Every structure is written in C-alpha cells, then in structure tokens.
C-alpha cells in the first residue's frame, strides 16, 4: 500500500473534475465543440482561458469533426492535446477517430457517455463509445468523478508513451458522473508537472526535419501499419501499469484494468462498466450479509480488453451476468457481453453467461434492478432454468 498522501478535497462534478485535470496537465492545445452532457468541460476550460489560469491555445471549432481534426494537427505538431465530446459528437468524429489512431497521435478525449439518436435523448448509456469501439483508441471507463479526474491525468502519460502513441478516451457516464457533484481529492500542480513531465514527441511536424505524415499506403503496406497499431495496443497494458505505479506514489490511489469485488468465492459475478459498478457493489454487499455468494467485476480498461485478468478472476464463478448499456443490433449479445463470451473460446473458463441490457437512454438502474439480476443468476447457478440468455431489464412489456 502506498504512503498516505495529504490532498485537498474539493467539490467537483465529473465534467469539472476532467477539466481541472486537463488544466493541471498543462495541455498545449484544446480544440472542442459543446455538446450535452460534456459541455461543462469546454465551458470550464473557456473560463480558465478567459481568466488567464492557463496558457493553452483554445480553438473553439465549428464541429466535433473539426475539433478532433484540429487535435490531430496539434498532436502531429508535438503538442499535448485534449478534447471532449458525447454521443452525436463522437459519432460525427467517427472517421477522425480512426485517423487519430492510424496516425499514432496521442490525444486525450473525455467522452461523457450519452445515448445516440434516434429518438434524440441526452441521457446516459454507452451506445456512443460502443459504436466506435473498434476505432483503435485506448478506452477507459470511470466509475465516478474521482476516477474521471485520476484517469484523465494518467491518460496523458499513457497516450504519449513512445511504446504506445495511441489516443485515449476517458469515458464518464453522462449526468450520473458528468453532472453529479462529489468530493474529489486533487493533487498539487507541481506534483502533476513532475508526474507527467512535458510531452517528448517521437516524430513531429517540424520545418527543420521535414517528414510526410498521412501518406497513402495501399495493398503492399497497409496491413503493416494496422499490425503496428495492434502491437501498440498490446504494449499498452504494461505502460498503463507503470503509469498506475507512478500515480499511486503521488496520490495513494491505485488503478488497474479491472477491479474485482468479493469474487474469490462467488457463485455468481456481475460484470460492468462505469457508474453502475457502485450500485452493484452496494447490492452485492447486502446480499453477502444475507449469505449469498455474489461478487462484482468492474472493467476500467475496456480497450485493450483485459482478457487474461478477467479469465483469472472469473475462473471459479459458475454464472456471470454481464451488464450492457448499449445494444449491438442483430448480434447474439450486447458489446461487452460479446467480449466476455469470447473468454470461453480463448481461455479455460467454463462459466455460464447471461447478458442484461439496461439503462438505455438514461433509464435508471436501481439497486432493486441489480438485486433481481443477482437473484436470477443465483437461481441459474443452482441449476434452475431461468430466462433467455439476453434480457432487457426494466423495459415495458
């Protein structure tokens, strides 16, 4: 355990916490466009700029497409770069997401997760990020404002590492995290400056060393570029661990790809991303006190997917209930459950899997909902035939 570190605790909502982290990371360029529920991040950053609290170049672009494009330009020019978006904004960025990862530009982007149209909806689910999950970005999901702050800081160091050089999204559930005020323990500016250092670009757009960025690679070279991205992604976990070590030293808080809770002797485990993990742990604790062997696994590092870590913690669990806050239309499972199901093919685990689609478009996921998920899983673990493998929780009949 790390030494206890004294830190100031201030009241911040998730968006403010992310904006504060970007400010403390001393980013060179922010290019962004407002969209609910991310807007507070750009507003807050605008305030820092207007009050002279940062010397960041703040480019208020005319669309999310241009926001991320400007970030790509700045990152290629060697800057530390930050942006933020949600929902339709992320969807509008779609082709630029692939550009950023393909050009190996370190960029940190907060995504305040929100449902996609139609119908138009401003509230939380994960359909925005899941719609772009194969874009080649490292994808982190925060559980609360503290995690959003801590992961944003770590994300710069991960993205800019020469073994990685990939963009990173830090996902925070819209409204549930983005707009909910919490006590957030914040570090001192100089501690962060020491932790992050200045970005040292491996290559950059530089008139004293002319290089071509964004060349056309056809059938003879394209695959090698993609394979290098795969390798960068596979280099990421050890870099993320190193960064977590350094962050623990200054903050006393330890982050890892997954956070198992009471899983060692569990008959059933619930696997989830984001803010629902807190509710799930609370319910699991109550069920424990009633003698039920249930646990929770929160996934923080969704891409690269922590396959072996998950297989290890789930190896003795009889039944796994996977919470998806997005639909993969026409697919056997929701997106997260598809990944969990692939564990059975890739590893030695033989657990049964069920998929619960819930919380779409901001539909509340209540403790009683989670309790019903556990109860069903326990009955299934006991050999009872329960439900279909994919169920929609809390939807009208």
């Amino acid at each position, binding site marked *: 355990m790390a030494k206890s570190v004294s830190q100031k605790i201030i009241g911040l909502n998730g968006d403010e916490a992310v904006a504060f982290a970007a400010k403390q990371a001393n980013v060179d*360029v922010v290019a962004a466009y407002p969209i609910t529920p991310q807007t507070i991040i750009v507003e807050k950053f605008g305030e820092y700029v207007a009050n002279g609290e940062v010397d960041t170049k703040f*480019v208020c*672009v005319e669309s999310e497409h*241009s926001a991320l494009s400007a970030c790509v*330009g*700045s990152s290629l020019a060697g800057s530390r770069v930050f942006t933020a978006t949600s929902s339709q904004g992320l969807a509008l960025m779609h082709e630029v997401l692939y550009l950023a990862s393909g*050009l190996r530009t370190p960029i940190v982007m907060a995504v305040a997760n929100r449902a996609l149209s139609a119908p138009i909806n401003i509230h939380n689910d994960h359909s925005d990020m899941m719609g772009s999950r194969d874009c080649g970005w490292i994808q982190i999901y925060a559980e609360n404002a503290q995690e959003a702050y801590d992961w944003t800081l770590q994300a710069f160091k991960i993205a800019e590492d020469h073994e990685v050089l990939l963009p990173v999204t830090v996902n925070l559930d819209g409204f549930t995290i983005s707009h909910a005020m919490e006590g957030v323990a914040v570090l001192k500016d100089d501690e962060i400056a020491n932790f992050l250092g200045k970005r040292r670009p491996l290559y950059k757009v530089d008139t*004293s060393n002319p290089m*071509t960025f964004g060349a*056309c690679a056809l059938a003879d070279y394209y695959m090698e570029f993609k394979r290098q991205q795969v390798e960068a992604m596979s280099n990421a976990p050890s870099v993320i661990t190193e960064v977590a070590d350094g962050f623990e030293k200054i903050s006393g808080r330890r982050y890892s790809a997954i956070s198992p809770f009471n899983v060692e002797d569990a008959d059933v485990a619930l696997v989830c991303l984001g803010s629902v993990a807190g509710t799930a742990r609370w319910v699991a604790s109550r069920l424990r006190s009633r003698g039920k062997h249930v646990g929770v696994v929160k996934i923080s590092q969704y891409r690269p997917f922590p396959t072996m870590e998950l297989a290890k913690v789930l190896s003795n669990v009889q039944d796994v209930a996977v919470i998806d806050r997005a639909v993969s239309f026409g697919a056997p499972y929701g997106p997260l459950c598809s990944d969990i199901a692939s564990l059975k093919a890739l590893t030695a685990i033989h657990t049964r899997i069920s998929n619960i689609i819930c919380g779409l478009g901001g539909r509340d996921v209540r403790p009683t909902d989670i309790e019903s998920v556990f109860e069903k899983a326990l009955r299934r673990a006991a050999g009872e035939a329960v439900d279909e493998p994919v169920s929609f929780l809390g939807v009208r009949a």
Partner: protein
Amino acid sequence: MVTLKELPAQELFGPGHRMCSGCGAAATARITLKALEKPAIIVNATGCLEVSGTIYPDTAWKLPWVHALFEDTAAVASGIEASLQKEGKAEDVDIIAFGGDGGTFDIGIQALSGALERRDDFTYICYDNEAYMNTGIQRSGATPYGAATTTTPAGSKIPGKTDAKKDFIGVCVAHGVEYAATASVAYWNDYITKVRRAVAVKGPAVIHVLAPCPLGWRFETSETIKLAKLAVQTRYFPLYEVENGKYKLSMKVPKPVPLEEFLKPQGRFRHLFAPEFTKNLCEFRRQVEHNWNRIAQLCGGESIQIASPACQTVG
C-alpha cells in the same frame, strides 16, 4: 512582378510524383512552393495532389507535409497553427493548406468557414479543376454550367450540369478575410505575387487557382497552359484580388477572345455545340458575361455588355 531568375531552382515538390502529364494541380503546387520565402508546412486534403504525391514509402514533398482527411484540411491547419502559436514559432513558418474544388467548395467548406471566422493564420489554396477528378470526373460545386461529368453526363435530354459554379471567393470575402484572390497556373508571376501577399497576411488568406485537368476536361496534355490562359482571356475566369473587402481586377480583358476558343478544345463541352443544345450554349455564355460584369462592377469598373449575336437569334 517576380522574374524567373529570382525564383529558387530548388524543387520542393519533387519530380517523381505520380500526377498526370499536363496536370494543372501539379503546376499549382510547384509554383506555390517556389513562391514561399519562409520554411513552410503543407496540409493537403484528400484528392489528386495528395494521393499522387505520397504513395508509401515514397514522398514527393521535401517539406513537412500532412494529409488527414477529405473535409478537415482547414481544421488540421488550425490545429498546427495553434501548436506553432503555443511554441512561439508562428511568425517563422508559413502554413499552406491545399484542397481541390471538391475538398474546398463542397465537403470541406464547413471546416474552412470555421477557420476563416476564427481568423486562424494560414493560407488556403484551392486548386480548382472543376470536378471530382480523383474519383473519376464527378460534378462538384465548382463544375461550370453545361459541363459533362460522369454524374452529369451529356445526355440526350439533359446536356451536362444544370447548375452554375459557386462563387467561392464571395463566400470567403463574406467571412471578412483580409486577402482573397483568384489565379491561374498560366500567369505564374501573378500567382507568385498573390501567394506572397497571402502568406504575409496575419490571419487567413485564400487563393482560388484554376488548374486545368486534361483527363477531366478532355484536352491534349500539351494544352494545359494555353487553356488556363484562354480561361482568363475569354473572361471565363476573371483574375482579381480582394483586399479587406476591396475588389481589384488583376488582369483587364478589354478585347476578350471568343468563348468558343476556350470551350471547343474541351471534350466536356463538345455537346454544347450540337444544334439542339444551342440554348444551353447561350446560357453558358450568359453566365460568363454575368459573372464578368459582376466582378468588373465589384472592381469599380463599368458593366460591359458583350454582343452575343448567336444567342440573340435564339430568343
């Protein structure tokens, strides 16, 4: 005006690129780089110039060159400029964004509009070959009325494009840009002067260059410069500058060459000379006259009525 002897011998857009012979866009890029007097960074929209210059592992560009996407060239240039500003190097480097007419008039105009409104400091050069040439000659907002393209072919009922060319410089001027100009690859010294004026501006500047395309316009590859000249001399493509909103003709054309001399060598206009499409040829002529008069008036000149006897008989 600059003389040939004063231009650098160095070729920064190297021989070895894969542009077609007689390509107006390649000439535009080459002359642009000869005009530059400071180190420069090039941002290039998807298109002929982009794809033909950098087929990995080769590159024809001997200066920093960035290609992102089709429609985001201005935004990428803004991002690079923001970085240079942050580093305090913005004054020492020119940023040139190149886009074709598709990447500029159409799909990239939103990003360009944003950059112009923010007054980001770079020079945007549109090489206009009047259609989506890289994908095989489809119509764009810069394709002139009547031109046959693969999406507006010269059919038996509809003879080519039915809509007029967009006033791109007008769009830029409406943003309050300090410097905007049209240019032609045929008048290289006029173009070089304009590039130098554009990069000297603090804030965005725009140059719209007519860059004939032998493949898309269907003419002999040896005729590029001749056609670029005829476009100006027939008043089809007026050369002018707009400094702080004030229009100024760069080249007066008191005795225009007959429009047919520009149109006839080009396969894309051949159908307009069929008897059944005489009306369309007249409409083409009317649009050229209208545009010339509009620009001439903006430049403080008199509106000039050009006698079009062939059209008067058509009614």
